[in-house]
């Protein structure tokens, strides 16, 4: 395969960097490209679901199916843009925005009680019953001042998660 940077020109790197708002350094983009090429087995230009699911550590994650929907068949530019929310340089706002997107699976800009239940189901599996999940969620929503029929918007998420900061950083190993 050769060193990946020989296949990625300086123009390409700058374009990708522009697209992710300079949240990754040029060296990190080169490393991400090597990783992208490693996962994209037949050089199709995108990574298929099957190829993501060949990473055992990813498969073991309870939210893997949700993330898979967001990251499936992205080209390299969009792949980097997706991962940019995990950069240490990304703002808390950007990170909360990604969390919101994970909840808002139907992309209608609001998160319903049902949406939150679904994510809770992914996280707790068969170790909590549906009734327990509903009860827990209703209780914490009530205490936070929201009712069961409320729809949460991005601003609500920022209000709830913003004040204590969100620690969601992933380091790109640069060798």
């Amino acid at each position, binding site marked *: *395969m*050769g*060193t990946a940077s020989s296949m990625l020109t300086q123009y390409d790197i700058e374009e990708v960097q522009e697209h992710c708002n300079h949240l990754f350094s040029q060296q990190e983009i080169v490393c*991400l490209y090597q*990783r992208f090429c*490693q*996962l994209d*087995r037949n050089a199709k230009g995108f990574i298929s679901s*099957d190829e*993501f*699911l*060949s*990473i*055992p*550590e*990813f*498969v*073991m*994650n*309870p*939210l*893997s199916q949700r*993330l898979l929907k967001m*990251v499936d068949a992205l080209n390299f530019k969009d792949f980097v843009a997706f*991962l940019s929310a*995990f950069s240490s340089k990304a703002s808390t706002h950007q*990170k909360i925005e*990604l*969390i919101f997107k*994970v*909840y808002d699976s139907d992309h209608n800009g609001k998160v319903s009680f049902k949406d*939150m239940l679904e*994510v809770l189901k992914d*996280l*707790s*599996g*068969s*170790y*909590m019953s549906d009734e*327990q999940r509903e009860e*827990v*969620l209703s*209780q*914490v*929503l009530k*205490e*936070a001042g*929201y009712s069961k029929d409320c729809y949460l918007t991005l601003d609500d*998420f920022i209000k*709830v*998660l913003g004040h*204590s900061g*969100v*620690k*969601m*950083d*992933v*380091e*790109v*190993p640069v060798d």
Partner: protein
Amino acid sequence: MNSTGTLKSSSSELDLDRPNIEDYLPSGAAIQQEPRGKLRLHDLLDISPTLSEAAGAIVDDSFTRCFKSNPPEPWNWNIYLFPLWCFGVVVRYLILFPTRVLGLTLGWIIFLSAFIPVHLLLKGHDKLRRNIERSLVEMMCGFFVASWTGVVKYHGPKPSRRPKQVFVANHTSMIDFIILEQMTAFAVIMQKHPGWVGLLQSTILESVGCIWFNRTEAKDREIVARKLREHVQGADNNPLLIFPEGTCVNNHYTVMFKKGAFELGCTVCPVAIKYNKIFVDAFWNSRKQSFTKHLLQLMTSWAVVCDVWYLEPQNLKPGETPIEFAERVRDIISHRAGLKKVPWDGYLKYSRPSPKHRERKQQNFAESVLRRLEEK
């Protein structure tokens, strides 16, 4: 040889082979601080730790690293090195390669013209026939090693033929077997391959004693375990060589050892193999190239350099389980060959991890939430 990951989850038998992965994962990765205090909306909405783990796995994971071929950096891009490199290519492809092919063909002719008569004519004199066949196979492997200009340094005492012992080694390519076989005729347990390799397996390797298995056959395991046990008991059989990783790894890491070789009730003699990548990377990336292509790559490079260490035989310690024994031997081999250990089962190359691991995370989460709900 194309191995697409099958969608069925790995059988429960594969799980029994594996010690607890959580014992191995670096503390930074999976273990987060146990959250305390009353449960709030913030705690339920904040999925950042789980998302970080998933993104971390996308960006880099220790399993895929084991199977990454690291091609050597090109060094030929300047005015005097480039012509030298071109000259090297000419020598390798037009002089060395034909010479090696010729040498190998000669070796085959000598081998077959001695092996076939001996095999057919000395049918009655089993012991003599086996001795001659054994020497012939060793010689043939010597020819193979010569065909890639193998520079192999053997360290440690040459393996002795004794009953109730088994040899285990780390696995990088099928040539591991040839390199070891040239010194001592081992019996081997192998995945049945298609094509010309399969033909070789069923004819010549049969004479040194071979046990076949099929990775996809779950029931096969019991039959294979029985055959292994029978082989090890026989005093006349060649010493058995097993690659407990079950798959080829890139010679920088070792994956978890399957316990099959370690519960036969006999001495385990570890063998460590480390290739020097100075001229060629001997890792056979079965996802990327067929074995034929891999051999051709070896035959058109300058040399294959490696070290082989025959290490001190180990026995099951009192109170040690076979899995612990396997990990202890893996430790010895990894240490000697300078390889890093990763906590993954090599068969994950072919199938998905068991849902048990995800379920454990879900269980931890659920218990934490329910507990904190009770707190005031």
